């Protein structure tokens, strides 16, 4: 037949470039991601928002996580997690001061406190945290939130 000649061509897909493609993916992930520093021990279903802004300085952030504990042994009430440990509301100020003390002097006033809050949390706790932050003059805060998807 006419087609017989064609069937003699090589059937295999060249896979020599496959490692390169995978390496490319690997480098992409290495660059665009950060290591998990702390294990988050509270529920984190964060409400989405639309008007997000990126922080200009990523290194001078103090992370606070708020939500109900994942392990039910710690109860169901929302707790505050900072640096891998649960802290009491009146320790928030002290903790921020500690973080601030670890920063170079010129950057201390630029510290941003990032709040990652579960959507089930009530505003009372959030306002209490804000009041604590105001006491230690940590006035820059950011409510971290994923981008709202277009309808």
């Amino acid at each position, binding site marked *: 037949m006419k087609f017989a000649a064609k069937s003699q061509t090589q059937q295999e897909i060249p896979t020599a470039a496959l490692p390169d493609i995978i390496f490319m993916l690997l480098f992409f992930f290495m660059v665009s991601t950060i290591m998990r520093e702390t294990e988050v021990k509270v529920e984190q279903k964060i409400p989405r928002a639309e008007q997000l802004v*990126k922080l200009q300085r990523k290194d001078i952030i103090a992370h606070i996580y708020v939500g109900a504990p994942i392990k039910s042994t710690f109860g169901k009430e929302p707790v505050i997690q900072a640096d891998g440990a649960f802290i009491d509301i009146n320790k928030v100020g002290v903790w921020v001061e500690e973080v601030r003390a670890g920063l170079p002097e010129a950057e201390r006033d630029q510290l941003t406190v990032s709040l990652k809050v579960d959507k089930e949390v009530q505003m009372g706790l959030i306002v209490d945290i804000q009041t604590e932050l105001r006491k230690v003059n940590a006035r820059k805060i950011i409510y971290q939130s994923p981008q709202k998807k277009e309808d």
Partner: protein
Amino acid sequence: MAKSKNRGSEEVNAGSMADIAFLLLIFFLVTTQIATNKGLTLLLPPKQEEDEPIEIKQQQRNIFKIQVNSLDRLLVEDEPLDDVSQIRDMVYDFVLNFGSPSQVKKGKKGKEVSEVETYNSLPASMKSYISRSLGSSESSDGPASAIVSVKADRGSSYEIFISILDELNAAYNKIYGERVGLTDEEFRKLNRNDPREKALYDEARLGIPKAISIAEPTKSGE
């Protein structure tokens, strides 16, 4: 024996290279998270003093009040509101009202600007919108004195608070963007580390402070 070895190919077998790379890739996928330093920024007011003279001095028309009760129901300017997304246009109109813009220069040192000057710096399309449909004596005097106050009950949810804050930011970003000829999204994405974009950002914000106040919530029994 030795001869038979030579018959094989001389190349190093690279077939498993992809597997090794995959293994590394999966390792990184599991141990890392995508850098998400994105969110809604807020500048808290300075440390609270015993009494707050600033709050009292403000006239009622210069405060845009948003209240939330424990059932997540909204009271905006003393009127109940069901749709959160309406806040955006209301705040936009409130801030740009220019009811009686003052000549007094306010703002950061060296960058003081009066409300009249702010008005004059707006593009023609915004000016015509303001003179056509705004300028009410019931609403704010000018952007420098306008304050948006959010008062959420202790029992209201964080979710509704974020959606309100989102709308407020949307309104301000719309104003800032329009002022320099950008959409609100383009304005949000301005990179402040780039001097040219930073200048645009500062130009847009000059004279229109983002005054969002999170009031102390009502405690039960008070």
